């Protein structure tokens, strides 16, 4: 059995990783745009659902504290089916990592690097991520601790500047629940629940590396709460600054918001803030999916030297990110219409719940027999 116990991360590090991961790409896009000015409510609903999902993953972790998702799916569903499930998850992680990478590449190409090929932008990003994952999750976690501070300092100063520039117009957030409760729930179920909160399924691969298992539940829930509130605040500010219409049309509403900052006639065009955030967020989101894919592959194929998988899988992610869609609109449509229903729902919700039922039955049999 593959040893995940070699490296250990502390509860603080897990917390930081979850927050950075959750906020990673979700803060830069127009999340829950169909709910218009109620996007932030949809996000909070999604967060509530995220708690439930995390409890499912955590329960599974409690049943098998030493095993990753790919490890216990074999125990629960038997070797063949378990391996198939694990394999599906590996492909899922690689695919989502590639999607996020594509998102960031497109973002950069669209905003500042019009003449730079997407492949080059992505390759550079991937190179840094491969290096980090090659060094191991401990290093990624420590990097997270450092950059977490940076992200927060940038976020708070950006927040102050937005308020100081007098951009916020709270009337943009009214009327409350204009589209109706059902519409908000629909947005929650199709978008905000699965992205970003359902993506926490990747932490089912990371939980066994936690050095104090009893903190897993508390830390996970707190991190989801913090990131959920942060995302909701950010989206509410976006709507308040841009208005619901522009919010749902802008590909990267946060960038539009930030570029509106004009303070003391000198501090303006702070796009670099956005870039800084986007690069850090992307780094962790891709990095964690990538790491999960690497350790999953090592486990399914019984491969001992995990580091050696980093380069090949990294290259796969890079090329998938390019070939995944012919154009950005196609990429977005896939992301909004197909991925949540056909990928996120089964991988994040249905399979884990089935696994939990399986685990429950198996363990009940074990105790009764």
């Amino acid at each position: 059995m593959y040893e995940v116990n070699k490296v250990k991360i502390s509860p603080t590090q897990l917390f930081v990783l979850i927050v950075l991961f959750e906020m990673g790409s979700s803060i830069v896009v127009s999340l829950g745009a169909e709910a218009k000015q109620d996007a932030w409510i949809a996000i909070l609903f999604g967060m509530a659902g995220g708690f439930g999902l995390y409890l499912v993953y955590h329960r599974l972790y409690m049943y098998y504290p030493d095993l990753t998702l790919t490890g216990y799916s074999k125990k629960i569903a038997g070797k063949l089916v378990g391996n198939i499930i694990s394999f599906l998850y590996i492909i899922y992680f690689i695919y989502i990592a590639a999607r996020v990478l594509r998102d960031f590449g497109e973002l950069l190409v669209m905003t500042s690097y019009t003449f730079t090929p997407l492949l080059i932008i992505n390759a550079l990003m991937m190179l840094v991520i491969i290096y980090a994952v090659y060094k191991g999750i401990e290093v990624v976690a420590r990097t997270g601790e450092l950059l977490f501070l940076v992200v927060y300092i940038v976020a708070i100063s950006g927040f102050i500047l937005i308020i100081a520039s007098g951009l916020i117009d709270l009337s943009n957030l009214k009327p409350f629940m204009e589209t109706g409760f059902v519409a908000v729930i629909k947005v929650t179920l199709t978008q905000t629940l699965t992205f970003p909160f359902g993506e926490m399924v990747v932490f089912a691969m990371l939980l066994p590396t936690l050095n104090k298992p009893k903190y897993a539940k508390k830390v996970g829930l707190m991190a989801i709460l913090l990131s959920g509130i942060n995302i909701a605040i950010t989206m509410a500010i976006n709507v308040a600054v841009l208005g619901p219409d522009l919010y749902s049309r802008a590909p990267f509403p946060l960038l539009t918001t930030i570029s509106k900052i004009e303070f003391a006639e000198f501090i303006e065009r702070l796009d670099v803030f956005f870039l800084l955030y986007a690069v850090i967020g992307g780094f962790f989101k891709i990095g964690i999916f990538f790491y999960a894919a690497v350790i999953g592959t090592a486990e399914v194929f019984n491969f001992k030297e995990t580091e050696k998988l980093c380069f090949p899988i990294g290259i796969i992610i890079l090329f998938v990110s390019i070939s995944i869609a012919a154009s950005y609109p196609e990429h977005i449509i896939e992301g909004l219409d197909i991925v949540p229903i056909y990928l996120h729902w089964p991988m994040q919700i249905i399979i884990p719940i089935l696994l939990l039922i399986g685990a429950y039955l198996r363990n009940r049999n074990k105790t009764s027999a």
Partner: protein
Amino acid sequence: MLNWFKKEKRKTKFDKNDNFRQRLDPGDPKNLPLFNKAQDNTDYIKHELGNSNDIVVRQLLIANKIKAAIAYTDGLADSKVISQFIVESAHEQTDMPVGKEIFQVAKERAVALGDVSEVTNWDQLFPSLLSGETIIFIDGFQKAIKGDTRGEEKRAISEPTTQLSIRGPKDAFTESFRTNTSLIRRRIKSPNLWLESMKIGKVTQTDVGIMYIKGIANEKIVEEVRTRLKRINMDSILESGYIEQLIEDQTFTVFPTVYHTERPDIICSHLLEGRVAIIIDGTPFVLSAPAVFIQFFHAVEDYYDRFDIATAIRLLRILAFFISLVAPAIYIALTTFHQEMIPTTMAIAIAAQREGVPFPAFIEALIMEITFEILREAGLRLPRAVGQAVSIVGALVIGQAAVQAGLVSPVMVIVVSITAIANFATPTFAIAITTRVMRFGLMVLAASFGFYGILLGLIFMIVHLCSLRSFGVPYMAPLAPFIVDNQKDVFIRFPLWSFKTRPRLIADENIKRMGENQQPRPSKGGNKDG
């Protein structure tokens, strides 16, 4: 025995390439005993050392009857001490016993030195002789007395030349091992300050000492330092840099993972935090390990000045580090990729200045940076008399003339100067040099990818920093892993009385540093009049 020696001697007198010479070569385990007669021993020494005339050999009589001989190295041994406490004292002896007791009595009475011991074979004898000890042979004994007469010429203790301070002690380590240990011992008068010494370097036989405070230093780290030092099997150790490069955790990094300094007060504060000092004979630089990243931005005065001043200056220094790291890269990124981010009036000003400049910003920056680095390197190694010429030429090259010739823009000159000055503000040279190297990498990234390149470069750097360890301690501690208790001495220097604990991970046990209630308060019964 005598026959054997004679044969051997005859052979060697004619055959110059004999195998005696190999005695001192690395990896020779020979443990030959001394000879019986004093004369033979001294002859052998002369022979072995190729008649080097700094080896002084003198025959003498103890109490006017016992034949003896002494040998010492001129210049390393103190000849006054030898004549007074060995030669004179030997002559003045009146009642010497006979037989086997002679040696013991001679050792105890005739040699009036502090540190006296016996040697029985040549492999012990030569290193002692060559480090300034005096060897006394007595006829009829296959052993010798060695007395500590070391008194080599050494430089007086002077002010440090690398890490200056306005407030604080002005003494610095010297090239002498013993002076260095005494400078530390003088400051920490605790029996728990332990010194382990060993000789490293098969040919140079350099004295290397490990110093730590027993009970504060982490045993595991001490053991790690010990094993890493014992692993070294080289012919020579000429400077602390040799040791540093042979014991550091990772070679392929631009960041220093061992700290070096010539200030005894820094070493003492490190020892008190639980670090291990490594003292090497022949260099004023003492190493300390484990070293963490943030430590390279702390200057001694941070602890001597009051905390608010110290904090402000420390923050300034960290800002200077960032400026010296990214200033040229940001200039390149702004002018090549992100012109829209510069406020309009400033953008126009920069564009107007750059109008006549024939190079793209990157080449312009590269030319100026390299010119500056060359100037600095030239200034460093020049004979002092020429120094002024260099600074005049340098000022002309980087300054006025280059701008007037239209080769570079004035803004570029400002950027390069700020970068250079900021680089000088880094308190340790080791990290300043690292910054210089990384700056060029970031400039290339900025030229090809703008801010995106700089950001990825910095993230890469942070990942790399987080992956480093120094003797098992994470290099970015206490930031990553984040240790709340130790944040008192990272960016902000808290008041001294709040440093209740030693840094975790470095000191393992005995974490507590001070008693309760160290915060100063005005006394209640104080003078309240007026």
